[in-house]
């Protein structure tokens, strides 16, 4: 089963995966941001920055669990299943970087819950798209709150990745991939 509207799902997947190098730069930015904040002086981190990162981490851990559930549901087939696994990998990278940054800033990173309670939705892909759209909005709402501009930049980097996930999932659902010029 293919949800893709491109002439070749295989080509679409290859194109997407081929660009995954861009995602790593986001992680690097976040790590650097953490180091820079540390370099400014131990204990200098804004507690609110740590809380913002922890809230984001909580959402990332939940997204990882959601994709895991989707992958194990047997409701997704290649190439969409591969995309879901790739996106889950990105969320794992985000979570790893967020947790490390929180620790570097002297905070205590939240850990994944033992169980997650997801809304019952038959359409796994649509649920994932909702998660990704929400993630874009959540990061957008967090970026202006950071005291440390490097952390804001790192969060914006993750936001860009979430936006790409959302667009690709919309495409897979047969919807207009980028429905508007602005996000809120």
């Amino acid at each position, binding site marked *: 089963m293919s949800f893709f509207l491109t002439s070749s799902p295989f080509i679409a997947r290859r194109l997407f995966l081929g660009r995954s190098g861009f995602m790593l730069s986001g992680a690097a930015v976040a790590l650097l941001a953490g180091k820079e904040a540390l370099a400014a002086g131990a204990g200098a981190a804004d507690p*609110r920055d740590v*809380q*913002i990162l*922890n*809230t*984001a981490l*909580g*959402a990332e851990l*939940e*997204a990882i669990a959601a994709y895991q559930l989707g992958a194990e549901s047997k409701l997704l087939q290649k190439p969409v299943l591969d995309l879901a696994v790739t996106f889950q990998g990105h969320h794992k990278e985000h979570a790893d970087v967020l947790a490390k940054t929180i620790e570097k800033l002297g905070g205590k990173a939240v850990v994944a819950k033992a169980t*997650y*309670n*997801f*809304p019952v939705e038959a359409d796994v892909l649509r649920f994932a798209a*909702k*998660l990704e*759209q*929400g*993630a*874009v*909005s*959540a990061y*957008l*709402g*967090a*970026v*202006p*709150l950071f005291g440390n501009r490097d952390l804001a930049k790192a969060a914006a980097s993750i936001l860009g990745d979430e936006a790409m996930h959302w667009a690709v999932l919309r495409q897979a659902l047969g919807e207009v991939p980028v429905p508007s010029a602005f996000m*809120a």
Partner: protein
Amino acid sequence: MSRVGPLIAGAAALCVAVSAGAAPDALRGEQLYARCQACHALAVDRVGPHHCGLFGRLAGSVPEFSYSPAMKNSKIVWNDKTLDRFLAQPLKMVPGSTMTYDGVQDAKERADLIAYLKHVNDTPECAKAPEKKAWAKKP
């Protein structure tokens, strides 16, 4: 051409006036609710608590949900007014909240969101929320 400018300006002013005075739109609120769905759901707790049964609920009171001390001690009761204030600037109203979100600046968008949350509370989607289940168990 010289008449076009004032006409456009007049039409724009009219649109703004209509928009400013328009009744809250629950359908539009449902679309806006997509922004909340990284952390919230209607009937189940996620990173944030569920929203069914929100109106009249004491902030920080959903059983088994882990709130920040700030929210737990806020003594806020959620209604149109408190929700509007919180959505506008969550961290200004409850400093220390884990809802680290800049807020919904547009008053009409807040009103639409609130209208949706009210509307959806009476739909089957909220029937499975913990509060409603508790109701169902009562004799």
